[in-house]
């Protein structure tokens, strides 16, 4: 019998990418995708459920679809996307409900993969050059998104302790760059000149979006357990990141940046507090644990930046004439469930 997978955050970049990859896997019988937004990529057989992550709905889906694998990608790590209350609802409350549903009596869930972020380590002058999965952060979090992710992780940890028969893997992703994903750092690197805090040249680590999806699928397939950092090899100074992008840097004042953030946002430069700390102190995470269980990266940190630049260049050359995918509920329902559609099995 194949796997029955629930993906939270189907409308997010990661959720849809993972769903697309799982659709190609013959060992996966059922894919249920949950989100508040419609999926932005065409999906063949994933069942999309429009829902918020409320407990009663989650518990019913897990039970009714006999879900055995949960991929929890619906965690907001980009605090510029939405208001902090929404982030709290999605990250903390959503995760709490999800794991409550997964640990209900008679639950069939046996594998859980959570997409967390290296934001949980923070960025502080007292940090070691490399964080291991066991390292603690130097200071309690000030940024709201970091606080919410730490709460999420504590729910995941509780769940893992309470349910020793379930394989729980938590992946902490470093700064993601790639041709298709938009992050605040990517936006900063697309500006004519890259913002940098004067007098600081912190070391940055990147992971390519393809490696992120591959890492999720890797732990899913191998039923890997535990916490893993996911980040490319190498730490690069921010000035060098700008140089690889072929850009100059423009200095932000080293003090009183908080006051500047509102006018900067107006100028199209949305740097949330957690990123300002990162631009000051940087962060490196040790990626050897995931390598040890057999994962191969396809990009180093510098390679990720170079690939990102290359993608930008191509995006600039090729006019985006193809229309974006639009989810049409009735059409999707027709293709999935109408008896008129003949299944295309060879």
């Amino acid at each position, binding site marked *: 019998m194949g796997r029955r997978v629930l993906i939270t955050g189907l409308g997010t970049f990661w959720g849809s990418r993972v769903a697309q990859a799982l659709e190609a896997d013959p060992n996966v019988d059922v894919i249920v995708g949950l989100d508040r937004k419609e999926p932005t990529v065409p999906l063949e057989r994933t069942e999309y459920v429009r829902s918020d992550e409320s407990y009663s709905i989650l518990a019913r889906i897990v039970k009714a679809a006999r879900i055995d694998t949960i991929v929890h990608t619906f965690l907001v790590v980009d605090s510029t996307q939405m208001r902090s209350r929404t982030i709290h609802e999605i990250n903390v409350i959503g995760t709490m409900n999800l794991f409550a549903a997964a640990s209900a009596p008679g639950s069939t869930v046996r594998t859980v993969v959570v997409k967390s972020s290296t934001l949980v380590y923070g960025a502080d*002058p*007292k*940090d*070691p*050059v*490399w964080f*291991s999965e066991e*390292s603690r952060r130097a200071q309690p979090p000030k940024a709201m998104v970091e606080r919410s992710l730490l709460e999420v992780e504590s729910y995941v940890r509780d769940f893992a302790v309470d349910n020793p028969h379930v394989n729980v893997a938590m992946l902490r992703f470093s700064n993601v760059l790639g041709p298709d994903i938009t992050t605040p750092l990517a936006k900063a690197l697309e500006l004519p000149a890259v913002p940098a*805090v*004067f*007098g*600081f*040249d912190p*070391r940055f680590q990147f992971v390519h979006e*393809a490696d992120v999806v591959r890492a999720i699928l890797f732990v899913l397939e191998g039923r890997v357990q535990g916490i893993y950092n996911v980040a490319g*090899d*190498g*730490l*690069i*100074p921010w*000035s*060098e990141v700008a*140089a*690889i992008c072929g850009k100059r840097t423009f200095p932000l004042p*080293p003090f009183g940046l908080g006051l500047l953030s509102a006018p900067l946002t107006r100028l199209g430069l949305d740097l949330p507090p957690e990123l300002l700390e990162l631009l000051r*102190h940087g962060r*490196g995470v040790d990626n050897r644990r995931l390598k040890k269980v057999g994962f*191969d*990266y*396809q*990009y*180093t940190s*510098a*390679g990720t930046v*170079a*690939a990102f630049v*290359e*993608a930008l260049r*191509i995006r600039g050359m090729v006019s985006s004439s193809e229309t974006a995918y639009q989810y049409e509920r009735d059409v999707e329902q027709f293709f999935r469930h109408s008896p008129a559609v003949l299944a295309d099995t060879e």
Partner: protein
Amino acid sequence: MATVPGPEPKRAAAKTTKTASPTRVSRVGPRGRSTSVALVAVPRPDEPVELADPRRSDVDEWGRSEHMREVARRVYGPLYRGWHRVEWEGLDKIPTEGGALLVSNHAGAIPADAPAIMHGIEEELGRPVYGLADEMFKRLPVVGTMWSRVGGVLAHPDNAYRLLREQEQLALVFPEGTKGTGKTYGERYQLRRFGRGGFVQIAMRAGVPIIPIAVVGAEEAMPILWKSNGLAKLLGVPYVPVTANMFAFAALGPLGAVLTLPAKIRIRVLDPVHFDVEPDQPRYSRSLIMDDSERIRQLIQEALLDMLRQRESVWFG
């Protein structure tokens, strides 16, 4: 510089000078490659593939740049030779390979001992020294970046372990910390507490010897005449000193406050201290750590007193 990869491997040995140039040219290679290779999703064969890593600078994971280090050595060299006339004793006790933790006394408002030790070892032994320091440096714009480019690393147990055990480097630490550099002139050459013995624990865990080093002259290079505790507390810094240099070089203005006095610096390397414990333990006996920490402190203190006894002049040694 047309270096064609020619079919002459047999003659290569005869031309040692020529073989150096192809390696320099090959640096162009990865830069040229990077633009085209990076995007292609490589199908994965069984053997590990060398990933494209299009770096532009030589800044390593610790933030150190050999290029910047070279510039710093060139700038500091005349000061090292002509101003402080640094002299070493027992430099051969520092291993030419393998990790070791160098432990020294620390003195002067802006301590002259750290650059002297790092410069001397790098010039003489040709191997890098990483200076472990307080996070205070990293909070300061410009200074913090410069500090890490010339080999400064935050004194964090994880950093020290990786440097010493995994990368087998030399790391320099001043266990007195700012308590050593914040001494007033009246307290010169009286070693402060050696922290909480963390340096011993790091060496034990990393399985490397500690090499004690005694430095004479840094105290007189920038003596603290008076310091304001209230102002220091207000600014959140370890000490706000009034140094002799501020008066001696008053004509130079603010530059005078950072220029050291031309005291003769003598550095004595003591016998390495090895620990008879298993590396990689999560914890070591507190009493063992404190015994060894105290012993090393004593060794350095005695060496300092001996060197002071032999010293005839602060300026001429």
